């Protein structure tokens, strides 16, 4: 009965806090969930304290409570639960880390801010193709996809093995000296670069178009790569 009294009293109840609407509003919001909890308690305490027996009244009570929760907020979203301070009891540090991670992964799934479609040309192929770079998470996946795409046009060593070899720096010089194919891209500044030097994410951000060119033509692009190879010996 005391609990029942409390329910009606809630609106006018004196609270610790500054007088005035705004603050009262905040307090009410904070108690939003526990208000519904109180309702539930009121219903279940009607059964008496001798234990809970499943009965019609209780079932209805629970449904009533569910309805209250749902009507309180947009039914499409989980209701007031999400607004309960400190529930579920997870440290803010952990919450923040997982929040960043979820944001990242959901943006990956939806293709990011926008899909990153770029034209792909291959020397000697009669027409160009387009790929969405955000469909892939690594150079490896991209090279597989390109190989499949252009497999019907390749003669000799291009295709997935050729591009994979390209990724392997020790085979770079062989590749550049042969007539095999090498993937290059035009970046935001308009420069033509060798694919594979920068981290994947950076590549996706800066790549405007792809060109799979003959190895011999790519030598001019590769002074940096050549130096790298020289350093590694």
């Amino acid at each position, binding site marked *: 009965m005391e609990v029942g009294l409390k329910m009606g009293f809630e609106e006018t109840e004196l609270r610790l806090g500054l007088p005035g609407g705004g603050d009262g509003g905040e307090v009410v919001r904070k108690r939003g969930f526990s208000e519904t909890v109180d309702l539930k308690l009121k219903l279940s305490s009607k059964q008496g304290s001798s234990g809970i027996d499943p009965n019609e009244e209780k079932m209805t009570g629970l449904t009533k409570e569910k309805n209250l929760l749902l009507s309180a907020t947009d039914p499409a979203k989980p209701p007031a639960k999400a607004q309960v301070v400190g529930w579920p009891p997870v440290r*803010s540090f952990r919450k923040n880390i997982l929040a960043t991670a979820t944001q990242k992964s959901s943006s990956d799934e939806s293709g990011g801010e926008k899909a990153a479609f770029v034209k792909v040309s291959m020397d000697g192929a009669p027409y160009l193709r387009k790929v969405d770079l955000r469909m892939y998470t690594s150079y490896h996946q991209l090279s597989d996809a390109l190989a499949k795409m252009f497999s019907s046009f390749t003669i000799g060593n291009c295709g997935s093995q050729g591009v994979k070899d390209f990724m392997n720096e020790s085979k770079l010089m062989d590749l550049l000296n042969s007539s095999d194919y090498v993937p290059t891209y035009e970046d935001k500044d308009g420069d033509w670069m060798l694919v594979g030097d920068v981290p994947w994410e950076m590549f996706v951000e800066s790549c405007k178009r792809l060109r799979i060119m003959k190895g011999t033509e790519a030598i001019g692009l590769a002074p940096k790569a050549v130096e790298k190879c020289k350093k590694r010996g």
Partner: protein
Amino acid sequence: MFWGSRKTIDMNYFPDEVLEHVFDFITSHKDRNSVSLVCKSWYKIEKYSRQRVFLGNCYSISPERLIARFPGLKSLTLKGKPHFADFNLVPDDWGGFLYPWIKAMAKSRIGLEELRLKRMVVSDESLELLSESFPNFKSLVLVSCEGFTTDGLAAIAANCRFLRELDLQENEVEDHRGHWLSCFPESCTSLVSLNFACLKGEINLASLERLVARSPNLKSLRLNRAVPFDTLQRLLIRAPQLVDLGTGSYVHDPSSEAYNKLKAAIQNCNSIRSLSGFLEVAPCCMSAIYPICENLTFLNLSYAAGLQSNELTKLIHHCRKLQRLWILDCIGDKGLGVVASTCKELQELRVFPSDPFDAGNAAVTEEGLVLISAGCPKLNSLLYFCQQMTNAALITVAKNCTNFIRFRLCILDPIKPDPVTNQPLDEGFGAIVRSCKGLKRLSLSGLLTDQVFYYIGMYAKKLEMLSIAFAGNSDKGMLYVLNGCKKLRKLEIRDCPFGDTALLEDMGKYETMRSLWMSTCEVTLGACKVLAKKMPSLNVEIINGSEQTEFNLDDRQKVDKMYLYRTLVGHRKDAPEFVWLL
């Protein structure tokens, strides 16, 4: 002449040094406290030989009194804010400041070597003073602390010449992206443990590599997100003796040279028993760590949001010796089944929610827990965030695992009943407390009535810490617990209908406990005042949810948050305006 006729030998006949040597073997705090109560001479000897002190509540005693009591202090553990501060229930600036402790110990020339802090406010100033005042300082462990920046860390690095351990766990650190790591002098070669996983900013990678290279005793290394894959690989080559590794960013192209190098480096690290990190992770790269999985005893993937259930289970298959596993709920019930059939040595399991903001969507249910209990009989510590729980499941778990010391269940909907029977979970938790006679820590959730507290009071005789939320019907519930749980030390309650009658029934009980927290309950200001007046050995604090400068005198008001704790030193002097000390 005399002692020849004695039948027994009087221990006090031994010189002090002998007694001191004997006391050296007594390491537990409780036992040492008991020793000091035997007689004056033992008190004195114990007092001067005590080196390690644990204060579960930094406000239970003042720095000056502690130093006077134990002048030989070398290792201090301090806990500050109440536990519910972890969940944003305690406003910033509530308290728990480290500075006064450092100042007092520096002034008294305490030979401090170790400092372990939890939920304290640590300023850069205090870290600087610490680094300058204790020439033998060796070990700093900060858990869930805040208030400092990387500048404070720089002071520690630069000035603590014999630093062995710098362990930062889940702290809120303002990252000035300075070169704090570079502040370790070239002469510093004593590091055994370095954990900076919680830092958000960039790290000077070259300094890190050089530091690791000149630390031959380094056993534990936990990196932050800013340390890339390549660096990890180079670090492993320099430190194959590592026992505990926390990776930073674990994203790379698996067909690259760097990846192959990492695989080779890891194979060389035969001593790794504990693995964590993976703050950023590419699933395709996980196979590189399979070789070390078979020796792992602790695996923490609870930050690896990028790993799905099948990748997790593939990994778990290799971890037969696992004793502790921290994981995200995306492993799913089936995945937990794989854990149950693979990890027969499992003692501790923590399953965290991968989406803590969406209360509707945990990926594990009671089924996963039942599978674990069936497969891992050694399980003694559990933290389980789940979608739902049934009484039947809890009863089964209680039958399968009788060794629980810690049992924390968090159903994401805190008042959810048993979905099969629509009953409260009283019987399920009742079975747990009845069966697990050694239970020390319990956290409840789900729909619960006074009945569950009846069971807890009746059976949980060793219970020391109890966390209750959205549970119970009346004061009876709280009274069952206060009367029945003789070993209770910490009780924290939120959003329960417990009021003045329960609070005031046995006021002396609170002197046997460390602290009591009650928020959004039915306790009135008047009752708190009564309690404070009758029990001068307790501090009763009222925390106001909102800014208020005027002391509202209506005793019938319900208090928003009350925190009381026993203390030897009365009211603290550093309470902010919104905390009222009654």
